[in-house]
């Protein structure tokens, strides 16, 4: 693994029962790169992200993140340095947790057991909330947020963690078009400011209003099908209609891909 390489996966296989969620996947990502991972449902995109923070059941192969092997005693060490933003979870609206406390959770792993957050940590939480434009929500109960607000707070939590690698798992999936655009801009801004390595999973190449579903800073696309990397290359080359049509098994030449995806229930 070269010093410039943040992520290295060699021939990784992950199975759920008899089904391979990932089947011999190899991938290298350089420090500071923004990589989009696209593919239909069940292609193994989310499993690829959980493989990187040590939460998948690696059957065979090798994984190195920031020079550490999350499957050889460094799982928690890796997770402290990797910011994972999962798909919008279902939150109990009565949960006894406010926004500021939820963002503080991002710091808890790095702080370690028995250490209380100091002034600098609290300031980092406030700064993270300001960065995503959610400072006014800091005292609001987490369960009282809208979908878009919740994702902004989730991004603030990941920011507060000060990670070296960001893993975004369909962050715009369950929010309205305006909030989707806002969030994409924020993610782009965060990536530019932090200089971290980012992997961004989405199963849509376009938003419902036709805008790109990946931030402009995403220069590389990884296309996944059936647990394998099907194509990997520059975004400009791969984001072409025929390839996308093939990726999503859309046969109709007449209908644009967005329409075909919607008809197939991808949205």
């Amino acid at each position, binding site marked *: 693994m070269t010093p410039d390489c943040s992520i290295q996966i060699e021939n990784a296989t992950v199975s759920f029962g008899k089904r391979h969620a990932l089947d011999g996947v190899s991938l290298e990502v350089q420090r500071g790169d923004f990589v989009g991972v696209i593919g239909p449902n069940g292609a193994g995109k989310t499993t690829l992200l959980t493989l990187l*923070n040590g*939460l998948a059941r690696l059957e065979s192969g090798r994984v190195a993140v920031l020079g550490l092997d999350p499957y050889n005693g460094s799982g*928690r*060490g*890796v*997770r*402290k340095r990797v910011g*994972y933003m*999962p798909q919008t*979870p279902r939150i*109990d*609206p*009565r*949960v*006894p*947790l*406010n926004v500021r*406390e*939820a963002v*503080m*959770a*991002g*710091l*808890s*792993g*790095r*702080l370690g*057991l*028995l250490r*209380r*957050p100091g002034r600098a940590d609290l300031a980092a939480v406030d700064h993270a909330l300001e960065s995503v434009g959610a400072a006014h929500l800091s005292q609001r*109960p*987490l*369960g*009282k947020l809208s979908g878009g607000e919740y994702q902004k707070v989730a991004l603030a*939590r990941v920011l507060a*963690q000060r990670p070296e690698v960001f893993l975004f798992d369909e962050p715009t999936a369950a929010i309205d078009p305006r909030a989707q655009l806002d969030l994409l801009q924020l993610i782009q801004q965060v990536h530019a400011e932090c200089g971290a390595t980012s992997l961004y999973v989405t199963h849509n190449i376009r938003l419902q209003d036709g805008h790109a579903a990946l931030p402009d800073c995403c220069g590389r696309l990884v296309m996944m099908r059936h647990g394998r990397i099907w194509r990997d290359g520059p975004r400009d080359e791969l984001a072409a209609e025929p390839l996308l049509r093939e990726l999503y098994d859309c046969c109709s030449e007449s209908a644009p891909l967005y329409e075909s995806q919607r008809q197939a229930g991808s949205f």
Partner: protein
Amino acid sequence: MDWLEHQFMQNAIAAGFFAGVACSVAGVFVVTMHLSFLGVCIAHAALAGALMGEWLHFSPVLGAMAFSVGAAAVVGPLADRGELGPDSAIGIVFSLMLGLGLLFLGLIPGSRTEALNLFWGSLLTVTRADVTLLAMTAAVLVSLVILFFKEIQAVLCHRQVAVAVGIPAAAIFYGMLTATGVTVAVSLRSVGGLLIFSLIISPAAAAFQLTYSLKRMFIISAALGVLACWAGLAASYLWDLRTGACIAIASSVMFALASAVSPKRRLLAGTREG
């Protein structure tokens, strides 16, 4: 206030305080994780263990502790593995513990008075040693909550995030289950095996209705737990009623009152309408 001069009453008031704090703090764990039935399961495991102690002539507290901690140790991984849902895992262990409890009760020779006392419990017959044990349990539990508050908060409210940021979420989760098991075992003689889950669940469930802050929820739950114990104790002394039953009724009344004034009740109604 002559009744306060009796040694047994002083013991009962102190035991009520410490049992109220310990049980209702443990209750916050199971209520916030929506695993209230786990409290019921652990209480029955403790009862089965104590009955085994009575049958084989060793300390019922030790038997209760072994069984309740054992039940927590089995239920946690079973529920976590995902092959069974938490409800099924808890239900299976619960029915096993109920069966074992009845089996051990049947095997105890003689009048079984001591064994039957374990079902109902009585704050009025606790000894100084019981109070000391309860005080130590409450002190250790509260200290652990203070020391590991940020990890407990993350695991209780947002376990997926807790795992993702590198918190040892599984260890914290199993630690909370074990603490619940120990608390139930130690409080068994005072409150009774059949009614202790009321003291575990009702004050915490009432506190859950009243606040959006976990810190406040712990404090309100502990206060309501103590209040339920003392109210039950007073009713039991004044009207010669079963102490455990009075505590259960007092804590249920508190839950009903908290639900009636809960800001979250309106929130849920709004969600359904929306």
